């Protein structure tokens, strides 16, 4: 038992530099978000008409947009929005999904059947469409985006957690706990849920990436974080009007989103290798 973790770590490391690059990128993004909270070189929102669409320079590293706002500052402030929405969504969807999935899988019976029926109906919507529908109802703030995305990802978590609880439930140590007279709640909390932790962490990492991507997609469509608050997707959407004069407007936010997602994907792969060696090929 004691020799197992080092071996798994070695297996994960075999994947090469991916894991390290992933952790590095995510570190930079979180750092950027932190910097974005504390200080940005220029005001990310205030309009400066004299400085419209200026090309990248020493003063404005990534240039300025159609309102004369510094792109670097907007990317930093946008990192705060993206990371907050990604983390909150991932946390909310994972927590609610684990709770519902574990209860349904462990308690079974009518509760399980109702949960499965409702989740199947929710999963009949592609997640972005579900999010669009919810955002249409509660439009106008980043909390609406968090609620919409959490709700659209929650059913997937429920399904995965329920399936894994159903498998673990049949293990001998669960029977042993029951025979020892432990309550069902104790058995669930002490013996079943801890065995799903690795899988839930892997899932939560993917959810963080999906949420970040979906948030930029929603903002790109004009249905996400309302302007003038900076968001990477919104910046991309605005860049479309100045394609010929200012192509850097489309490059910076797009590259930022792509690199962040690359980091999350690499980290997710490494975590999957570590926690779930059976699926290491994915």
């Amino acid at each position, binding site marked *: 038992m004691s020799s197992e973790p080092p071996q798994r770590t070695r297996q994960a490391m075999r994947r*090469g530099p*991916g894991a390290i690059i992933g952790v590095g990128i995510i570190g930079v993004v979180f750092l950027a978000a932190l910097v974005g909270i504390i200080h940005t070189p220029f005001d990310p929102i205030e309009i400066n008409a004299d400085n419209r669409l200026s090309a990248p320079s020493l003063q404005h590293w990534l240039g300025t947009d159609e309102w004369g706002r510094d792109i670097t500052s907007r990317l930093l402030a946008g990192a705060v929005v993206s990371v907050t929405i990604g983390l909150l969504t991932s946390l909310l969807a994972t927590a609610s999904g684990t709770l519902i999935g574990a209860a349904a899988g462990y308690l079974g019976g009518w509760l399980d059947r109702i949960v499965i*029926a*409702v989740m*199947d*109906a*929710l999963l*009949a*919507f*592609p*997640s*972005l*469409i579900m999010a*669009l*529908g*919810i*955002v*249409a*109802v*509660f439009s106008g703030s980043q909390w609406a985006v968090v609620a919409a995305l959490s709700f659209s990802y929650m059913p997937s978590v429920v399904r995965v957690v329920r399936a894994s609880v159903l498998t673990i439930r049949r293990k001998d140590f669960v029977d042993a706990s029951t025979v020892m007279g432990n309550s069902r709640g104790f058995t669930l909390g002490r013996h079943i849920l801890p065995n799903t932790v690795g899988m839930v962490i892997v899932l939560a990492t993917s959810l963080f990436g999906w949420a970040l*991507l979906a948030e*930029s*997609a929603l903002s*790109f*469509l*004009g*249905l996400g974080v309302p302007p003038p608050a900076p968001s990477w*997707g919104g910046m*991309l959407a605005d*860049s*479309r009007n100045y*394609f*010929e004069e200012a*192509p850097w407007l*489309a490059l910076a936010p*797009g590259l930022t*989103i*792509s*690199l962040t*997602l*690359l980091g*999350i*994907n*690499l980290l997710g*792969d490494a975590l999957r290798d570590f926690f779930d060696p059976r*699926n290491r*090929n*994915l």
Partner: protein
Amino acid sequence: MARYLAGRLLLTLPTLLLATALIFFMVRLVPGDPAQVLLGDIENPAALARIRASLGLDRPIWMQYVLWLGRVLQGDLGMSIVQQRPVAELLWSAFGVTASLVVPSVVLAVLLAVPAGSLAAWKHNQPADAGIMAVATLFLSIPSFWLGLLFLLVFGVKLDLFPVVGYVSPLEDLREGLRYLVLPVLSLALIETGVLVRMVRSSTLDVLSLEYVTHARAKGLSEWTVMWRHVLRNAMAPTWTLIGLTLGALLGGAVVTETVFTLPGLGRLMVEAIFARDYPVLQGCMLLVTTTYVAVNLLIELSYPLFDPGVRLEQ
């Protein structure tokens, strides 16, 4: 087989019924009165009441749902509040546009991903594998709307090879229509390829590690025969599921790609309906998307026995 089919069909009915209720009530939670939207900024309670009555908005909400569902089952999805045209008509033409974008994209993605993924698995842990995986992970990480924008910037604006804005139906003018579809199809396909390659590789690796593959090789079968006859076919089942999920999701969810390339597809229609508070159109879109998604996945599930005779039909 017929019983299996009927059983599966019957099982999807409650799902669809619950989904329709969800669509109906969710759309009703949208703040703002569509009658007032129709009327504009004019303050006229009598006219407002008349419009509300003509839209059926004055009845109890559960009654509105039952009446709506009854009409939907007869194919009547109501009238668009903004465009004053039947919703079914709008959906039909938008669905055609989306399908002409999504179906070629998914086909192209499969044609790229299956050989690439199998090759990566076959050359496991060799440079070819690492290269293919790196490219796939890269494409997986690029948002489709950004790739689309880059394509527009390079091939549309700079090189002037393809049109930047607009849409011509390939049914009306094949040559011109295809020119409008090349960039959107390519950008969507490349990103889906990233997802699919990883799945094909993973399931091929799973199959390659099974004993019967070693057995087949030990029999002296050529590597080609082993891969083609014994590995690929069995590795396709999980990939097939993912293809179905992708196809189903994209038929309603190519929203951002449609927005980048200003294609008048289903996703675009839905976003515009959200902005205009056009309830019937929004409901119609969600209904069509959901039904398509469920139907495509059902078809995929029903086709499992073709790939894997081991799937027990009575389950």
